[in-house]
């Protein structure tokens, strides 16, 4: 009997394979994509509950004893990300049913979505540094396919930048993984956490940690390595933009949390001021970049950059409270960002353009869409009782507790500018008079509204249930930082070195 941690990997991979084989039967492909995603969502929710009651879940691939084989593990942070990945893929697939072009659908659109979910789920579940690299490559190659699917000039240009920067980040990651192996002689995260504190050359470890910071920072779009994101994210189809915007940069943040929270804990205390600086610059640059834009999806793409800064701030505050707030903010942002892209995208789909100047009149024409936008954008800005408020409140409280006044001030100030951008879109797309006669344009059906509505409901639930959400994210942060418990769960009570010695004897 296979361990349950393999299921969220096997099911999407199998679904992608079958969907590729029968790619001519569009209806069946859709059914398979929907079924695999629903399975992962169900599994993710089950895992959330299981971890809350039974703690960290660990298994060893092919029965190789840790630290020799590849470890799969899930703690609270993994489970949150796994469930949200499945939720996002699900709403993206629902949105794709009504918006995606038939030509793209024929070119393996749904199999690529499933492979993306497969890669992300693997990255969230692995307990091995090199294996994390491999999962990153899997999700990258699926995302390369999705971002260039369609082959317009803008997509090819944006895609080239996206591909080059992400490959550069991956190579940095690989160099870091190689150096870590040279320094510590292992790649298992638990074993590394055990060994890196007693390693001979601690300054070398700090340098290696820098490689990981650059690698994951470029994938998460932290300043100054974020330029590829606004250059490419508005080019693919709306559904793909929504999925990427919600999910992909947060995989980089997840990797930062995992690697710096668990493996490089000592280096985190060294690098924390640098991370806070980067976080602050990212917030400010992203939000100012958004103010200059005049296209719905481009504005939102710059806001991804800005909000990734808040998540890095959670890491930079280097403690359980900061990390817990960061996790809560990330969970909220994944949901709300995708919702905003879906709502703005729906308006773009109906109007036929994403340029603010040529839009308008949506509030009168599509009141349901307008209400959804208001809720989602207020959640993004952080107006209580919506979900964004509690994440930001937690971050600011953690910053005050650490007496990092500058970053607290920046985080609070950037919110105002976020509000400005959201109101700009509200005025131009929804409130002002229609730019041209819209009576011949299609109306928004349930298929267009439902995906965003699901996400807005989740966001409202996270806002109203803020206490349990914060409790869960605190547990997740404690688990992520608890290296002693990790070593015990992965290698047994005596630790990984003891296992290695026993086998050598």
């Amino acid at each position, binding site marked *: 009997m296979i361990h349950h941690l393999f299921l969220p990997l096997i099911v999407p991979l199998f679904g992608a394979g079958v969907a590729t084989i029968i790619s001519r039967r569009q209806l069946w492909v859709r059914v398979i994509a929907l079924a695999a995603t629903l399975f992962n969502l169900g599994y993710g929710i089950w895992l959330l509950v299981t971890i809350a009651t039974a703690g960290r879940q660990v298994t060893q691939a092919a029965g190789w004893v840790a630290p020799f084989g590849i470890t799969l593990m899930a703690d609270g942070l993994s489970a949150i990300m796994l469930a949200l990945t499945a939720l996002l893929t699900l709403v993206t697939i629902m949105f794709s049913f009504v918006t995606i072009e038939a030509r793209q659908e024929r070119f393996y659109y749904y199999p690529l979505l499933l492979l993306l979910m497969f890669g992300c789920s693997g990255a969230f579940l692995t307990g091995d540094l*090199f294996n994390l690299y*491999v999962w990153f*490559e899997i999700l990258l*190659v699926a995302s*390369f396919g999705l971002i*260039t699917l369609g*082959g*317009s*000039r*803008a997509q*090819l*240009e*944006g*895609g*080239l*930048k996206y*591909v*080059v920067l992400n*490959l*550069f980040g991956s*190579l940095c990651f*690989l*160099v870091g*993984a*190689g*150096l870590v*192996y*040279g320094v510590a002689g292992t*790649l298992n995260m638990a074993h590394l956490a055990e060994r890196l504190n007693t390693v001979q050359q601690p300054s070398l470890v700090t340098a290696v940690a820098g490689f990981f910071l650059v690698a994951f920072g470029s994938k998460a779009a932290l300043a100054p390595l974020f330029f590829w994101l*606004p*250059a*490419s994210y*508005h*080019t693919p189809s709306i559904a793909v933009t929504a999925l990427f915007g919600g999910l992909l940069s947060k995989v980089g943040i997840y990797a930062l949390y995992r690697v710096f929270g668990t493996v490089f804990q000592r280096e985190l205390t060294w690098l924390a001021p640098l991370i806070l600086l980067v976080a602050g610059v990212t917030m400010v640059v992203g939000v100012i970049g958004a103010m*200059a*834009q*005049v296209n719905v999806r481009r504005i939102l793409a710059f806001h991804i950059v800005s909000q990734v800064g808040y998540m890095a701030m959670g890491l930079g505050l280097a403690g359980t409270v900061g990390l817990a707030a960061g996790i809560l903010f990330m969970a909220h942002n994944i949901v709300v960002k995708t919702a905003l892209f879906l709502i703005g995208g729906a308006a773009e789909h109906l109007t036929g353009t994403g340029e603010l100047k040529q839009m308008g009149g949506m509030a009168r024409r599509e009141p349901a869409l307008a209400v959804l936008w208001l809720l989602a954008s207020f959640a993004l800005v952080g107006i209580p009782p919506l979900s964004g408020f509690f994440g930001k409140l937690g971050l600011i409280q953690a910053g005050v507790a650490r007496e990092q006044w500058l970053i607290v001030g920046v985080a609070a100030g950037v919110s105002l500018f976020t509000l400005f951008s959201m109101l700009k879109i509200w005025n131009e797309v929804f409130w002002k008079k229609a730019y041209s006669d819209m009576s011949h344009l299609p109306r928004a059906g349930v298929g267009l509204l439902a995906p965003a509505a699901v996400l807005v409901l989740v966001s409202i639930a996270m806002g109203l249930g803020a206490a349990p959400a914060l409790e869960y994210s605190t547990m997740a942060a404690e688990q992520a930082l608890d290296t002693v418990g990790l070593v015990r769960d992965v290698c047994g009570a005596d630790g990984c070195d003891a296992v290695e010695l026993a086998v*050598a004897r």
Partner: protein
Amino acid sequence: MTFVLSLVVGTLFAGAAYLMLRRSVVKLILGMALLSHGTNLLLFLMGDGVVKGMPPFVDEATGVTPTAAADPLNQALILTAIVINFGFTAFILALAYRANQAVGSDDLDDMVETDRL
């Protein structure tokens, strides 16, 4: 030997940085390829693979592990990295070809449509 290979890694990285900072897409791709080769060599250097040359097999008669065995893990890592980088190089070449068709230029400075307001 380790020292010589370290110099090679450094040279590959330097060449990669130079090529990647040029405006030509072809040179950019060549730079990525050099960077991945340098990385592979660096992985190779990380496990005493150069100094110790024995295969990592336990002697069947005596049951003794050879002390000078080369680390097999790096070689597995390199193999994985080579395959991945090969696939990505192929993909990026195809992408650059299509971009070249669409833009009509090899110059990265001509690819600014997605950055304009």
